[in-house]
């Protein structure tokens, strides 16, 4: 009985806290993306600028670790039984990758362009042999190129 109460409390806390945290995070992501819109991040490996115009080219990166709440994990667990799109994990991955990109852009403040951008994702905090995902880390990295004016 007490197990059930604990479980229900965890689900309720997970749902409320998780939803609030996600909303707030998305608001912050949207604002910062708008603010950093002037700095393009591109996946192409070469930017054809004349050598004398390039002031600097350096590695920039940003990483973010985001965890999923109890409710969403439960939902994903149910999804694991029936199969299908695990929608409850979508926002987790999306938030982690966009946050990582934003942090990379923040690191490259003042640069003209970021080229050769790559994003890597890793599941971290795995519990023993269990296949459950605790949280994900997304890492974005690229080369920030600054041009002489």
């Amino acid at each position: 009985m007490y197990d059930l109460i604990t479980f229900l409390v965890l689900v309720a806390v997970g749902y409320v806290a998780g939803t609030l945290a996600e909303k707030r995070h998305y608001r912050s992501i949207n604002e910062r993306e708008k603010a950093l819109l002037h700095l393009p991040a591109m996946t192409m490996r070469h930017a054809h600028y004349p050598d004398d115009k390039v002031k600097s080219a350096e590695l920039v990166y940003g990483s973010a670790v985001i965890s999923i709440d109890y409710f969403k994990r439960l939902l994903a667990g149910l999804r694991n039984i029936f199969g299908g799109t695990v929608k409850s994990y979508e926002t987790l991955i999306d938030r982690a990758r966009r946050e990582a990109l934003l942090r990379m852009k923040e690191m490259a403040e003042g640069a003209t362009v970021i080229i050769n951008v790559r994003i890597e994702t890793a599941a971290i905090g795995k519990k023993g042999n269990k296949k459950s995902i605790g949280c994900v880390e997304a890492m974005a990295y690229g080369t920030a190129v600054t041009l002489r004016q």
Partner: protein
Amino acid sequence: MRYTAREPESNVNVTSTSPIREFLVLTGGLLGIVVGIYFLLGLSVDLIVPHISIGLESKMGAPFIQSLEGKEAGSEQEHYVQGLIESLQKRCARLPYQFKVHVHKASTINALAFPGGHIVVYTGLLEKVTSENELAFVLAHEMGHYAHRDHLRGFGRAIVLMTISALLFGSESGVSNMLAHGLNVTEMSFSREQETRADEFALEVLNCAYGHVAGATDFFEKIPKELDPGKFGHYFASHPQNRRRISHLENLIRSRGLPLAGRQALPETIRQTKN
């Protein structure tokens, strides 16, 4: 080409969905499946029980017996009851079981039929019986449950799970043990018809073994009313149809003209529980 910075209009990577709705749909589906399986199990008990071989039954019984073995094992009481049941089986009740008696120290006045021919007899029962005929009737009643395989049906739905687990994982597996421990065997329920059939079986065995049926109803009648009915297993006051069973037996004795004669005494040591 000119680069114009611009935000994407929508996020294609996140499906806009109501997580609560998804949760309800998924749990609803899961519950539906569980309920469906529960009903199917109930339906399949009667289909499966006649097809369970004695060998498989012993396999299923093994996890139960592990927890019973060692207590009072090899005692004089156990030898005596074992001898009695073997002589009953040899002479009058040819059942394809290898019966094994386990005497258990408890005040419960009952005997239980476990899968695989393991009969648990509580010392409370041995203290109460006064004649060999009386004890023989109780044992023959249990054998009657074996003959009709009521002891398997008594488990209800769990027997289906136990069969599957014994077939798939064997009797030594954790799953089988877990199932066995999860079952409260003392609460195995028998239907009115099952008890009546076992009583009739026992009456026949008693008549065959002793040439008369004295002692058949002794045990039912002996139980004092002031005693806690919960202490008496499936023979006695816990059964509301107790009186009905006595009169049924008496009717049978009368209508078939079964003889009554003197009861055979029980060795005194059998009734005493060593402490």
